[in-house]
């Protein structure tokens, strides 16, 4: 008999996910691969974009090492759930392979679109909040959930234009999508703040309007201010520390939603890893403060 190698494709499946005990995580990005895997920082979990792991090699190597120590959340940017056309089967197939191997505790993408015709524009583009869009988004969410055999979370985007034919607010749109498809919501607090400035609405009202029972993850990130002749437009860049206003909004969200798994996102102009850990500690501090206040209130 000839010898048959038993572990040909090196596919290893990890134990089923469980909700992280420490609710605050950070994004695992290429510049942090070695440090995170060699001296794991004190954070509760890691988030990655699955699209960066569709191939093999270094990316999967380090993700596999990281997964041995952390729970992970797979946060996609390429499903284009809001496109008029259906979700790419090829994208779903490669994504599901990662879900099967890495057993994430959360799987998510955005209420936005990127693909039209044969072009995929690599950005989270804005949707008109109409019944037609809602039906389209729900069809694509259901296609994805059926393919994965699990529910996903859908995130509110940052937008720089608002459509004139909107028939509902964004939070109503998100709530309806969740109600209709059974998906969860991923609430990006920075995106709410950025939009409240760009479109002129009350961000606290947005958070109060969201269906609290549906929120399965919160994101926090930094943005920049871009000056135009007639005012300032905020751009969600994930390249700066979380702003004070966004921390305040986050505290309000935690009061309403409880200690939901929270991510510090950083995707360009990468600082030392310690900066992300510091930001994570701030979020943890807010969760602690709110939790102890509510325990004290309940005891009174």
């Amino acid at each position, binding site marked *: 008999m*000839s*010898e*048959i*190698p038993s*572990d*040909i*494709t*090196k596919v290893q499946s990890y134990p089923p996910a469980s909700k992280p005990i420490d609710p605050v995580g950070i994004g695992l990005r290429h510049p942090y691969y070695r440090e995170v895997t060699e001296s794991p920082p004190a954070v509760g979990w890691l988030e990655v974009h699955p*699209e*960066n792991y*569709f*191939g*093999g*090699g*270094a*990316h999967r*190597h380090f993700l596999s090492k990281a997964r041995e120590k952390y729970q992970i959340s797979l946060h*996609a*940017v*390429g*499903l284009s759930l809001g*496109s*008029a056309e259906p979700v*790419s089967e*090829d*994208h779903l197939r*490669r994504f599901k392979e990662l879900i099967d191997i890495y057993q994430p505790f959360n799987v998510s993408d955005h209420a936005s*679109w*990127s*693909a*039209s*015709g*044969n*072009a*995929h*524009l*690599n*950005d989270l*583009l804005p*949707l*008109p909040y*109409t019944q*037609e*869009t809602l039906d*389209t988004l729900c069809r694509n969410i259901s296609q994805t959930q059926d393919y994965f055999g699990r529910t996903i979370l859908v995130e509110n985007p940052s937008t*720089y*234009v*608002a*459509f*004139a*034919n909107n028939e509902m607010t964004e939070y109503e749109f998100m709530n309806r999508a969740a109600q209709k498809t059974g998906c969860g919501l991923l609430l990006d607090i920075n995106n709410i703040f950025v939009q409240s400035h*760009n*479109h002129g609405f009350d961000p606290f009202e947005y958070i109060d309007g969201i269906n609290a029972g549906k929120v399965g993850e919160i994101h926090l990130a930094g943005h920049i201010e*871009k000056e*135009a*002749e*007639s*005012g300032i*437009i905020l*751009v969600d860049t994930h390249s700066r520390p979380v702003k004070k206003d966004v921390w305040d909004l986050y505290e309000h969200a935690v009061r309403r939603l409880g200690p939901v798994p929270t991510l510090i996102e950083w995707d360009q102009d990468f600082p030392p890893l310690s900066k992300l850990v510091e930001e994570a500690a701030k979020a943890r501090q807010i969760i602690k403060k709110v939790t102890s206040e509510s325990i004290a209130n309940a005891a009174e």
Partner: protein
Amino acid sequence: MRLSEVQKRFKDTMLDHPKVLDDPPTDFAALFESGDIPLPVRLKVYRNNIVGSLTDVMINSHPLLEKLVGRDFLEMMSRHFVLENPPTQGCLSFYGATFDSFIENYELAKAMPYLPDIARLEIAMNEAYHAPDDEPLTAKNLAAAPPENLKLELRKSIRLISSKYPLSDIRDFCMEDDPAKTMNIDTGGVKLMIYRPALDSVIVKLDEAEYAMLEALGHETALEEALEQTLEKHESFDFQGFLQRHVALETFSAPQANI
């Protein structure tokens, strides 16, 4: 306007000449709420995100081109490429696979006829880096396999390049980073194998015969036939030496069917 039409118009506007954003057509502008910040400023945030991020993807995967033509030229060429060839899928790891043929037809690059081959080398390095994981055929596997059943399949990361320019010398020249130095690019061509034996892409120089043999194997030609084809053109091809060298390099994959 139907959602599909809105998205098509938005996409076309983003990939159009930047001047269109300064004065968008009335029916397109009417799709959006007007506010304090003018529409062109708002639309440009999207355009910058899209074109900027994709141009960065191209620049980051072509460090040798950057050394040879400079950052500004590469950025301009990449931006033109992106606008004409936006990605067709949500995963960008393999984006830009046609950059070499784009450069071939790029008027401003015609004075540097070696650029497409440099791009080809960098595309191969990038594709090898992201190729799916697989296991190599080892000497032990080989010893255990009955010779009549021997099948040689290339690893998924293998890319073969034949160039009339000394690509690996040009690469070394770029890596040296000495602006005073010049090189003669007419010293003869090379045949190269690019692959990823572990985590990084590696370049191996090949002789004519082993290139021919690997190329035939890459086309899924049966071993015997590949060998025949190679011997036809290269009488002195040493198959045993080839096999030994490439098993040591871990060129071949070890699917179960091999054994």
